[in-house]
């Protein structure tokens, strides 16, 4: 046989089954394409992250004073310059960050949100040298803006409200400012509140200004509360951190100072570490899709080789060597695989474009680098080709391995075994032989059925993973929301810039406000929690509340809220991470007031009084009576309030906006809904992603049904000859698919749940350790997945109805084999 004849012959084979070939190529394309595009996304994100953090010169190390502590400008720089490795510190910049509120007009809407103001060094002509801002609209600030009421608005916030590049706004206390541009900064590529709400750019404003301006607004001119620096790459960060900690402890013994690196920044961590976590997640999904495609390809080629059985036998009888006989089906297989790869490139490119636009929308980095990933596409597709060729080669090897006479034999002597059909004879199935046939057909070819089932199961598993992850998120958030809103659901949270005595004028002003009916003072401070002194622990927001509150107290799922004992109430996730239960002790590292504007950090061993059900491990409670351990007993910086009945929240916000020291007025309902709104947006995107495995399942099912229709042509023709209506034949085919759909869906659900558990228990904690997800797969989702999986598969034979009706019964019946 000449290569030309081989090629022509194999192309004819392809043409004879072009719909099935096209389908399988699309299946392969979906598998390889999703794999390649998901990996492209990872490459883009890594490249874009690197470029974005470089252009904005993200800090390497940060020195942060504890809440409420301030130092005169230049002091931190002097201390940093005094460490032994000071020559390796390339740049230092001091900053002043304060909480505030922002009020402005956005179209017809009045926006009044809490936020924070970051004072930076704009004294150099090109702006800050460490942790710069990237201007997306308008102009930047310069040395001439020092002390002037000019600010930059954070890009995500400004975009969300469609704000112009320039405009007027009011800060807390009613201070008028002019915003002159929109800016992105590396610590706020997405907006994260202190409460842990992510993508909070619509409800939390980040404002950039000069350090001098912020000092004036905070009425602390000439002070700072953090410093950021960039280091020479040759320096060991750990040794510099150790040097800094020693130097700071010696120079500022009564001030709590924390030295962190860029990887400790939650936004930096999320942006960079999410890439690895997301890649693992998407790889699992893409791999499952690809495996489904491989099973489907294997199935199709096996069946194509089976139809060539006699031709293979004839060639063997004519003495053609096995490897030559294998060439034709191998060529067919290779052509299918290549068509799949072409589809893979197209599907991958389309998916990549969609993912790119989603990424751009959700994470607007200053630099987005998204070149076509030739390397990834080549590697993925070469691997796909090799895997497919192996899958194709196996049935071919089996076909040429038999005796020629077995391959040539026709008629009853060629009748094949019944597979597992004999096992089904005792199964009582209603509907006489019409009811039995679909079950027998599935059982008759167990290997084929298994391949089909595994292919569909892989697709179903992907759907389960996607649905399950979101079920878990939603049920966790819903449980958190129910906990937050279980009583006094209209209550307001009023945050103050600093702790003030509960009998101070600011508290009195709030209590006496026309729109306020009742108040409960509390405290909120940053702290960290660990299992013991040696444990590194994690950051928390410690809230001092009244355990006997008339408004709200956390639910104790374990232990009791005991006002009389000095102890702590931690989240379920925190207890799990620390390995403690109610009654055990933990170490709380918390600030202790040392002076008017200085706090030191102290470790205190405390018993865990109770465990509460909130999903964030950062949420920690103590009773107000024990706030004296911070040396700020009798003060408050967070007031829980109830508005006068029939008063709108905006009226309370407006009334308190002009009260100096009030930095935020929000409803607990708004806080509880924030992340939910965001997830709803993600869910709409994930719904699109679910379409891929669903399409895959339909394609695999269609191909299986189509091949089965081909293989059973004679059986169907015999039925038609006996007067069995087409609708009955189709119903039997649909029942056969339904059986496989049910089994595949059950296998897929089990597989998907296992994958989901792996992703939530193993991958998620690496990127979002704060989050304690309750693993959920709701009955509704189960029904949806089951109905989608089963119906899509069961309905597939209906697509072959035309083919069945067009079959020439007499010709089919006369075909010998």
């Amino acid at each position: 046989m000449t290569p030309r004849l081989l090629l022509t012959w194999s192309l004819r084979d392809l043409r004879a089954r072009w719909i099935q070939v096209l389908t399988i190529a699309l299946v392969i394309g979906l598998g390889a394409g999703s794999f390649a595009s998901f990996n492209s996304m990872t490459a883009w994100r890594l490249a874009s992250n690197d470029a974005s953090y470089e252009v904005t010169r993200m800090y390497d190390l940060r020195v942060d004073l504890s809440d409420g502590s301030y130092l005169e400008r230049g002091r931190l720089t002097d201390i940093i310059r005094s460490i032994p490795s000071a020559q390796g510190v390339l740049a230092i910049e001091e900053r002043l960050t304060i909480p505030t509120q922002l009020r402005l007009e956005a179209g017809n809407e009045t926006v009044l949100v809490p936020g924070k103001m970051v004072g930076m060094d704009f004294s150099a002509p090109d702006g800050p040298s460490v942790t710069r801002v990237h201007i997306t609209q308008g102009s930047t600030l310069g040395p001439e803006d020092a002390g002037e009421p000019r600010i930059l608005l954070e890009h995500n916030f400004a975009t969300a409200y469609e704000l112009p590049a320039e405009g007027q706004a009011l800060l807390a206390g009613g201070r008028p400012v002019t915003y002159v541009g929109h800016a992105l900064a590396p610590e706020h590529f997405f907006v994260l509140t202190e409460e842990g709400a992510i993508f909070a750019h619509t409800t939390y404003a980040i404002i950039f200004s000069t350090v001098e301006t912020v000092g004036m607004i905070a009425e602390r001119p000439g002070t700072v509360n953090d410093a950021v620096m960039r280091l020479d790459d040759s320096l060991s960060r750990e040794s510099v951190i150790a040097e800094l900690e020693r130097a700071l402890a010696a120079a500022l013994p009564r001030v709590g100072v924390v030295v962190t690196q860029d990887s400790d920044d939650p936004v930096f961590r999320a942006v960079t570490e999410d890439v690895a976590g997301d890649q693992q997640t998407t790889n699992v999904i893409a791999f499952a899709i690809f495996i489904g495609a491989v099973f489907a390809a294997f199935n199709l080629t096996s069946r194509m080789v089976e139809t060539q059985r006699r031709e293979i036998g004839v060639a063997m009888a004519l003495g053609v060597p096995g490897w030559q006989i294998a060439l034709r089906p191998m060529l067919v297989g290779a052509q299918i695989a290549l068509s799949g790869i072409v589809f893979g490139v197209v599907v991958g490119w389309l998916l990549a474009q969609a993912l790119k636009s989603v990424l751009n929308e959700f994470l607007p980095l200053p630099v987005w680098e998204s070149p076509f990933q030739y390397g990834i596409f080549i590697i993925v597709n070469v691997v796909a080709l090799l895997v497919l060729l192996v899958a194709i080669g196996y049935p071919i090897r089996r076909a040429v391995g038999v005796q020629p006479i077995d391959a040539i034999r026709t008629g009853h002597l060629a009748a094949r075994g019944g597979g597992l059909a004999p096992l089904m004879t005792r199964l009582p199935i209603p509907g006489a032989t019409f009811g039995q046939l679909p079950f027998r057909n599935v059982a008759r070819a167990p290997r084929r059925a298994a391949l089909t089932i595994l292919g569909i199961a892989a697709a179903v598993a992907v759907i389960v993973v996607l649905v399950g992850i979101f079920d878990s998120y939603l049920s966790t958030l819903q449980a958190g929301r129910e906990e937050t809103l279980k009583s006094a659901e209209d209550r307001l949270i009023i945050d103050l810039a600093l702790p003030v005595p509960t009998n101070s004028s600011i508290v009195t002003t709030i209590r006496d406000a026309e729109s306020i009916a009742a108040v409960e003072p509390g405290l909120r401070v940053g702290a960290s929690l660990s299992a013991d002194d040696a444990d590194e622990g994690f950051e928390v927001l410690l809230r001092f509340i009244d355990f006997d509150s008339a408004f709200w107290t956390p639910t104790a799922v374990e232990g009791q809220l005991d006002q009389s004992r000095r102890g702590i109430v931690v989240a379920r996730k925190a207890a799990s991470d620390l390995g403690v239960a109610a009654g055990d002790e933990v170490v709380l590292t918390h600030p202790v007031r040392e002076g008017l504007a200085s706090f030191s950090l102290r470790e205190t061993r405390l018993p865990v009084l109770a465990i509460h059900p909130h999903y964030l491990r950062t949420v920690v409670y103590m009773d107000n009576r024990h706030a004296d351990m911070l040396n700020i007993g009798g003060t408050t910086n967070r007031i829980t309030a109830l508005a006068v009945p029939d008063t709108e929240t905006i009226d309370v916000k407006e009334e308190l906006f002009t009260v100096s020291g009030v930095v935020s007025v929000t409803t607990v309902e708004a806080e509880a809904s924030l992340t939910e709104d965001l997830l709803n947006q993600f869910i709409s995107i994930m719904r699109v992603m679910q379409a891929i495995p669903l399409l895959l399942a339909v394609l695999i099912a269609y191909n299986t049904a189509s091949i089965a229709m081909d293989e059973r042509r004679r059986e169907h023709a015999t039925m038609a000859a006996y007067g069995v209506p087409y609708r009955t034949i189709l119903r039997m085919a649909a029942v056969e698919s339904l059986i496989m759909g049910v089994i595949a869906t059950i296998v897929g659900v089990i597989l998907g749940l296992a994958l989901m558990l792996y992703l939530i228990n193993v991958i998620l904690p690496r990127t979002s350790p704060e989050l304690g997800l309750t693993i959920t797969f709701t009955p509704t989702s189960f029904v949806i997945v089951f109905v989608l999986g089963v119906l899509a598969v069961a309905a597939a034979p209906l697509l072959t109805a035309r083919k069945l009706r067009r079959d020439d019964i007499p010709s089919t019946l006369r075909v010998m084999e």
Partner: protein
Amino acid sequence: MIDLESVAKRYEVGAITVTALDRVDLHVSEGEFIVVLGPSGSGKTTLLNVIGALDTPTEGRITVGGQRVTGASGSALFAFRRSMVSFIFQSFNLFPGLTALENVQFGIDAANRASAEPSRSAADVLEDVGLGERIPHFPHELSGGEQQRVAIARALATGNPVLLADEPTGELDFTTGAQILELLHQQADAGKTILVVTHNREISRMADRVIELSSGRIVHDGPPAGGRAAISDLRW
């Protein structure tokens, strides 16, 4: 039982018109055992197919059991096949996923004629064709002759009055083939109308009537030359 009036069947193959049947007139009475004889391409299978409503003639009129086949709707033809004719094929066309008994039961289920012969179960019919011991076996566990017996039992189980057999002995050895023919003959004796298509002239010797086709035309219609032979006299 069967009436064909000027039945023709023509196929277009590219630019060429192939005439498979050319103005065939035929009358078959109830209980006749007829062998349709002819070389390949003579139109004998086409004749069987148009009688059995698997194919529609280009022109002419066909009536079977008083039912007009030509001009009937698609669904009426399906109903006709369920109630009037049953096929026996050269390569048996048994359902490999069903046992011998279930294949026969399929015939009953397809005809949906539960009340026609309530005493005749699928097992009874298999007993009649001598396969009472092979009831639970799947087709691949049966010999060729046994498979064809199951196929005949399936056709009989429908209770339909006309059996159409297309080369029923084509895949069988002489002894088995002879047994199958004897079985079919017994059905004719029992009142069924049997049409057997074959290219084997020896088989035609045992028919009541031989219809010989050549190029789509009936060239002979009458008893076999030399009279009807016993099965034991046949050789091929």
